């Protein structure tokens, strides 16, 4: 913890968990969509999110994050209008997602060209989040550290290929947490790596070129 965790963050109100954290959850979906133009957004809200989302502006915050805004962007207030102007259809569905944190959202985004993404996560207090699912794959990261998500085909040697590149060419990169998830043998799989500091220039692009890697996402810590 440092002084800016106490005097900070600079954020749009009214609630660090219901507003600032919601923007950050939305931003994860923005990253997964990888700049593809968005056609529609459907967001399921569970627990406290379902009950108080209007008063806290959680709806605007999630939508703002999905459109790429940050938790300090003034545009959050007008996110619904901005989305409409961009031709994005949106829908908020209060529901109950059993067994989840009280502030949980399940975000479905559909791109103009049919791309789809689903992100499920919770706002766990103080603007911090925990992401649980991405595109049906179990992940587990908080966004407190810079996080690299490697979407790849489930083939032998992939972890070694990725981590060898990091170890041999980018020696200063230190992995603090590593997780692999694979819903179906031989299908798509996801590595989640929390790293210390930001990845060096070029590393992410080079990782993308590794055989059988489908995509790499970098979720920056705030």
């Amino acid at each position, binding site marked *: *913890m*440092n*002084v*800016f*965790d*106490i*005097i*900070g*963050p*600079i*954020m*749009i*109100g*009214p*609630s*660090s*968990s219901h*507003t*600032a954290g919601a923007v950050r959850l939305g931003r994860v979906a923005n990253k997964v969509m990888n700049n593809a133009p968005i056609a529609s957004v459907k967001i399921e809200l569970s627990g*406290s999110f379902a*009950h*108080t989302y*209007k*008063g*806290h*502006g959680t709806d*605007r915050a999630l939508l703002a994050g999905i459109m790429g805004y940050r938790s*300090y962007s*003034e545009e*959050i*207030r007008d996110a619904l209008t901005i989305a409409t102007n961009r031709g994005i259809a949106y829908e908020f569905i209060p529901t109950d997602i059993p067994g989840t944190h009280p502030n949980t959202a399940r975000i479905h985004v559909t791109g103009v060209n049919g791309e789809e993404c689903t992100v499920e996560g919770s706002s766990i*207090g*103080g*603007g911090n989040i925990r992401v649980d699912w991405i595109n049906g794959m179990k992940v587990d990261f908080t966004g407190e550290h810079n996080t690299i998500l490697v979407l790849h085909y489930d083939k032998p040697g992939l972890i070694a290929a990725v981590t060898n590149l990091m170890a041999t060419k980018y020696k200063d990169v230190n992995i603090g947490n590593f997780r692999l998830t694979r819903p179906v043998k031989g299908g798509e799989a996801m590595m989640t790596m929390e790293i210390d500091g930001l990845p060096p220039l070029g590393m992410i692009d080079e990782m993308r070129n590794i055989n059988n890697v489908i995509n790499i996402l970098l979720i920056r810590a705030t």
Partner: protein
Amino acid sequence: MLTYKSIEELIKCSIKQNKKISQMVLEDQALQMEKSIDEIYDEMEKSFDVMCEAVVQGQAKNQRSTSGLTGGEGFKMKHYSEQTNGGLSGIFMTKAMSRALAVSGCNASMGKIVATPTAGSCGIMPGCLVSLYEDKSIDKRSIVMSLFTGAAFGIVIADRACIAGAQGGCQAECGSAAGMAAAALVELYGGTPQQCADACAIAIGNQLGLVCDPVAGLVEIPCIKRNVSGVMIAFSSADMALAGIQSEIPVDECIDSMGEVGRALPASLKETALGGLASTPTGLKLKEQVFGN
């Protein structure tokens, strides 16, 4: 490097290094974050600028919260202060109250604020420090530096107790903010590190047990007005410490006590909106007004 495990550590190191707590913390944070002292200072100055802007935004006559439950408190208080030449509490204090209301109101209307330490308690540090900057002609650098002292006290509080209403009740949010602000005020008025600690101890001691009971679960009722109480407690605690009145209970023990009280509070009084003012007949009616049944 500092560990921020106790305020006693901050006082001892500050005396040993013969530096103000703020200067020592600034240098330590630059080391810990591997940035230059100027970079760290500039970032803090940016936060202070946001606080000043939030005061202006929140004092607008037409300020209304997103839910519609609250609005215009900062304006009303400023107007009253001007019309009555300071009302009961005097010009300086009524203007400070107006600033605390304004920043909290700015937060409730989805304006830009600095969480200090949280969004719910974001009016207390600005209520105190913007007032010293604008009405007591203290230079900006000293004010920004005092935020490092407040922040260091906040880190210790977060580590030994907590700063989230959901975990420790309002004492953890407004109580922590008032304790941090009191320490910053004492340093700005030339008090010793020990007096900073005493002021923080008195402020926390005076808010022990304060529950978090937001009507409709929104950061408005009673949060906005509790920011004013926090400002008053911060100023009175700082003045007591500067007058040489000590806290019989050392500050670290006060903080531990706040953590213990927080754990003992039932869940209904920790940001769940199931108890306190939130569950009064009128509180429930207001909830229905905003969200329906």
